[in-house]
């Protein structure tokens, strides 16, 4: 079980959190022209990297904040956690 440092609450066990996927995916702007490919990339396609991955987690059984986790998917090492507005 991972130990994740919520930027607002501190170190907590993984069972307080929900995983939220790739944090680098950006939703296309509303009311903009979006190609099929662009939309498919956003909705369906995700990389599955072995190694460092910037991802979203949600402190569902805690402060209910979404935040970013920079994590190595092979070793599960968490290099850094940060608020949404920050970057590694």
């Amino acid at each position, binding site marked *: 079980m991972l130990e994740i440092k919520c930027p607002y609450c501190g170190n907590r066990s993984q069972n307080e959190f*929900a995983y939220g996927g790739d944090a680098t995916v950006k939703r296309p702007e509303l009311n903009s022209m979006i190609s099929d490919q662009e939309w498919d990339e956003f909705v369906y396609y995700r990389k599955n990297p072995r190694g460092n991955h910037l991802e979203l987690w949600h402190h569902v059984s805690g402060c209910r*904040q979404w935040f970013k986790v920079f994590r190595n998917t092979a070793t599960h090492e968490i290099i850094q956690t940060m608020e*949404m507005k920050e970057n590694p």
Partner: protein
Amino acid sequence: MHQEFRTSSGGFIDRSKEISFIFNGKKYYGHRGDTLASALLANGIHLIGRSFKYHRPRGIFAAGVEDANGKVQLYKDNITEPNVNVTEVELVEGLRIESQNCWPSVGFDIGGINNFFSRFFPAGFYYKTFMWPKSFWYYVYEPFIRKAAGMGKAPLDPDPDRYEHQYEHCDILVVGSGPSGIASALSAAKNGARVILAEDKSRFGGSLLTDNVTIGNKNGDEWVEDSIAELESMPNVTVRKRSQVFGYYDHNMLVMFERCKDHLKNPAPYTPRQRLWYIRAKHVIISTGSIERPLIFANNDRPGIMLANSAREYLKVYGVLPGKNPIVFTNNDTAYETAIEFKAKGINTTILDTRKSSNAGVVQEAKNLGIEIKFNHGIANTSGYKKVNSATIGELNNTKDGYKNLQTLPCDSIFVSGNWTPTVHLASQSGNKLKYEVETDTFLPHQSRQKETVIGSANGSFTLKESLADGFKKGFQISDEITKNSKELSVPISDEKDFRLHDKFWCMPLPNNKNYKRFVDFQNDVAVSDIQLAVREGFRSIEHVKRYTTLGMATDQGKTSNLNGLQLVSDLEKKIVPEVGHTTFRPPYTSVTIGTLIGREVGKNYQATRKSPMHEWHEKNNAVFVDAGLWLRPRYYNRGEETLDEASKREALNVRQNVGICDVSSLGKIDIKGKNSAEFLNRVYTNAFLKLPIGKARYGVMLREDGMVFDDGTTTRISENHFHMTTTTAQATNVLSHLEYYLQVVWPELDVNVVSTTEQWAGMAIAGPNSRALLKKLFPHDDVSNEGLPFMGFKEFKFKNITARVFRISFSGELAFEVNVMSDYGEEMWNEIMVLGEDLGIQPYGTEALSTLRIEMGHVAGSEIDGRTIAYDLSLEGMLSQKKDFIGKRSLTRKAFAEKDREKIVGVVPLDKKTSIPEGSYLVENAKASFPNPKLGHVSASCWSVEYDNPFSLAIIKDGKNRKGEKLFAVSPLKNIVIPVVIISQHYVDPEGKRVRS
């Protein structure tokens, strides 16, 4: 009572008390402090059970968790537990044990015939033999194998015991209380670290309980006692025995089970049987010691043959002689100590040593005591069916692949030693890359991935001096990184015997042209010939050899067999062991009962239960409850002899004719505030929300980004920047997470806050033609007329001093209102409504009637919004705004979503107007078509229409738009029925929606 093999003195048992136990129907005695294994051996019992595949007689082979043979069925106080290891059960009054895997008895076992047909059971026989015909697998092979390879009998009754879970954090977890473990715990604790010391056995000390050593000016066991007492007195230290750390997971999370109850004579009430500890440690010190490695020789599995150090443990710890005429068979010096200890009790042994000589101090000591030593000798075979009675021994030839001469040596036990295997399981689980050390023939921890340090013999330090020095040093270094106290202890002087290197030789040759079995893995009955066969058949990867032969599988996890198996494969492939590699170590290290893993989460504690504020009222009024997620909701209210169908019909009809009240507190409620709230809702919902007037509710539909309908509900504008959203009961938590995601991740620039208020409001729906009259009585000073509170209107009224939010919304299709009051006033309000509604014919209605009412009206719910339907399929396409963008809109242009014959929701009525259509039935054109019969769609919800008094269902079917009036068949293969049906509109009752607006 006389225990023939108990010594007259010595050991750590309490000889003042005798404890009886029953083994296979016969009564025996042991002492407090015994394990079942030591008590059995004290009575001269070696034969415990039959082996897995060949049903060969097997006995106790070791003294700890590494024993792979001593599995029994345990009975105590009408509770039974299968596959219990006799070496791990402490003797208490009232135990009864029975041998497993034998019939009719362990002494005469019919399955033992397998032994004579063993050439039909080679490696991989499962894969080769039981292949055809296929149907035989279910009826013949599988039941036969289950029985023949039987483990114990699973208990049939619920487990009456309690199990607990505990979470703990510490600076340093020390696993194992041998010399290095205690040294590091002392050193770290004195330096101020928060330490947990865990020992799996019932006594601390590890090898210090059996070795003749001194530390400082104390004997080994005295040093243990004093050190543990000191640790236990320190507030920063938690010391636990009977506690097995069995798993090492990410971020230094370890799990440990503690045996709390079974060893107690009179446990206090509510004592948990076992406790599962989740330990998060800043650093883990693994001092798990090492396990003696067996030697391989013909018929090396007979009862009476055991590990040399285990024999010494039985003697030194329990005062038990596992044999009175033993042979000690070794390839190293450590087994000499066993012979010396037995000599001290007056037992003469013969030592067979595969080496040509040894100049170690301990060997000289044995010589001086007059113990007979035969160097360069091996055991070629053994005899004795239920217990070993002699060994065929011989001098090894120069190439060690045969014997120069053979002779028979009578014995009643053989103590074997093939040197030592460090217990690296936990380190390996943690991700440590192991390295093979050729000199000691061991896999040792090498590169750690997490914060763990392996010390003592688990790390290849086989002398006490090294282990103590390492323990004190590492304990200080690791603790000082955390505490920075710089308080270092000095290492006490120690004295121990002299041991030297072992012989790199484990597998004895067979005597001339004989085909005897030489076992490598006792638990899975894997012999040398099986491994040879696997390699001959082309299995190269050690992982493949393991699975093909079952070497090192199951609960034993190869504790004694792994390295011997690797050595054999290496020899066969003419490689060295590190080139072959090792199999993966996986948790759990030893068997863990399922009860321990589950803990208290059983029965009603399996999940949390959510109850509405009016729950007690429902209970008092004969509600029958149904699970709705975590919620308990009234399904119907029982009156007399009514069935579910009768009660729900009565309740639904009463709503259509008079007035009903339904508890809707479980609906998700989300409070939304902030100056961009309307803009946010406009993006979240498919329909427009920007211009929703204050004091108005609006039905809204949400999509996921992939275009599927996510949830629906009503949202009310309470003031300019304040909204009240409702969600379905099932999706309440998901919708909140969804909203938080868009607000925090996608559009953080929006000034909106959302919070769940589900539990803050008690909700009650008042529905039926008399509902306005009832509301008038409830709020006599307020205007509840159609003009004052029109359809989809919202008002705040006062009831006594309670503020009530009143929404004119309807799920039932009748004129209806929903009243919300703060939860604490829920029951009071509900009671008032029941009193005031009495002369209007009010009745409460449950979820079953609620479903009937919504199905009749053609309203969609969870069975239609199942994550696979788009708005069109649910006839909600009118809800999709053409003017604005919203979540999921871009997906709606996908080709498949625009196809003309897409599935669409319809109503379904059986032609006979009598037969209810089971939910989940398929709709087909031709009931008699051969498979696969093209499926047009499925029935999503069914009810008995109280309006028309016949069955009615909703279905989602292909091209549903153009099928009104078509005659189809509803088929339910599960219930084996075919029902002719006609397709009609989904809106069965009041299709124009006049009633809700009346």
